[in-house]
């Protein structure tokens, strides 16, 4: 019987029984033995018209399992009775144990990523490393901004870069040419970096203490907003060749960022882009966002961005709590 029970259990769970009102059913198989074999099943079936057909099918399966596991048994009768849950249960039936089918979890879905991000954050803090997560739509100029920043601040700040892209090492090569140690992460089908990828990247990159780690996320204004990497702040790069309403279209990202770099301002004379409207839209979504107007190509406006970086990357022992934006 034990064997039959185990086998039958697997058989039943493999059939796709729709959930509904809980019903017990009682099965009785009479064989040549004096004692009939009785089983009570508790199903997740509701008492629909098709239910009986399903029960019969299940019973046939159980019987065939039983015959296979106990050869030589001859089944005389097999009866099936369905019992609504409201009916009193037979004494000794441990129904209470079975009724606790719903398990409260209260688990945060992104808990694993958040825990890994917290580990990264502590790792950065131990080494007094400033980590920034750069996000933008594709083509806004993240890599160009990084190249320029590396060339201009090379002698002053120790800059390390983690490059995230779905494919190719192109950006990594550009950063290396600019003079910073870099690790290229290809996410494949992934549309964003996650904390474990950054942790793996850091192992390879081995950034020095008191340095700055710039993480260039996959070009995407949607998904990276949700995945904490352990950074000190998110920086969104937004270019004047995009629409002024981008902050309103992608509010989650602009709400998650501390800094907005409005790039490619050297192109403004050729465009109808309304800078004031763009900043107003960003502030609508995030009243605390710090905007910088720059051209990574011409260098215009970059000094303010560099001042902000220097302020954030304050050396150990300085007033770390006084990091005004």
């Amino acid at each position, binding site marked *: 019987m034990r064997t039959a029970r185990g086998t*039958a259990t697997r058989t039943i769970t493999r059939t*796709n029984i729709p959930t509904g009102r809980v019903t017990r059913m009682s099965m*009785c198989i009479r064989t040549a033995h004096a004692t009939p074999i009785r089983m009570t099943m508790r199903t997740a079936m509701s008492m629909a018209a098709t239910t009986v057909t399903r029960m019969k099918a299940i019973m046939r399966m159980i019987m065939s399992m039983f015959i296979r596991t106990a050869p030589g048994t001859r089944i005389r009768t097999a009866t099936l009775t369905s019992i609504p849950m409201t009916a009193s249960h037979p004494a000794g039936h441990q129904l209470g144990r079975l009724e606790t*089918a719903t398990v*409260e979890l209260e*688990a945060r*879905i992104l808990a694993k990523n958040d825990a890994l991000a917290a580990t990264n954050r502590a790792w950065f803090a131990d080494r007094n490393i400033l980590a920034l997560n750069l996000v933008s739509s594709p083509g806004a100029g993240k890599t160009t901004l990084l190249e320029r920043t590396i060339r201009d601040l090379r002698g002053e700040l120790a800059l390390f870069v983690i490059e995230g892209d779905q494919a190719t090492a192109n950006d990594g090569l550009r950063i290396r040419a600019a003079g910073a140690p870099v690790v290229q992460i290809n996410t494949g089908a992934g*549309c*964003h970096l996650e904390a474990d990828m950054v942790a793996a990247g850091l192992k390879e990159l081995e950034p020095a203490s008191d340095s700055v780690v710039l993480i260039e996320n996959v070009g995407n204004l949607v998904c990276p907003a949700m995945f904490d990497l352990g950074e000190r702040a998110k920086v969104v790069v937004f270019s004047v060749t995009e629409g002024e309403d981008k902050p309103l279209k992608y509010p989650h990202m602009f*709400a998650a960022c501390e800094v907005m770099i409005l790039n490619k301002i050297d192109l403004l004379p050729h465009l109808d882009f309304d800078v004031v409207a763009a900043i107003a839209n960003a502030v609508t979504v995030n009243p605390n966002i710090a905007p910088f107007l720059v051209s990574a190509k011409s260098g215009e406006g970059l000094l303010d961005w560099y001042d902000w970086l220097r302020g954030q990357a304050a050396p150990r022992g300085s007033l770390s709590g006084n990091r005004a934006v």
Partner: protein
Amino acid sequence: MHELAIARNIVAIVAEKANGRRVAKVTLEVGKLSGVMAGAIAFCFDQVAAGTALDGATLDIREIEGRAQCQACGAEFRKPAVFTPCPCGSRQSTLLQGSELNIKSMQLEETGICAEPAAVQAGRM
């Protein structure tokens, strides 16, 4: 597209908690300001759940409205969008609810059979 990553997280967490048992239903709490589309999770879920303990499980998504407290006037107000200001005009507010992204509970599928000792029922039926 991050809904796929989220669906994977859901399946991983629930499968671990189910510890080998089959899961019939998963109940989620998704805040309307969480940045996640409930429909997109449902779309990915069946694919990700295939072949796991959650194969064929139903997904019950409870959406939670955004609510915030204004930092200027202290009033509590509905926040249907990330950038909805307080009726007083202030944009400085603290989100009270709406950013949830939780697995509330799982319902385990019946283990199928509870074989009762023959002695208990001997003579009946």
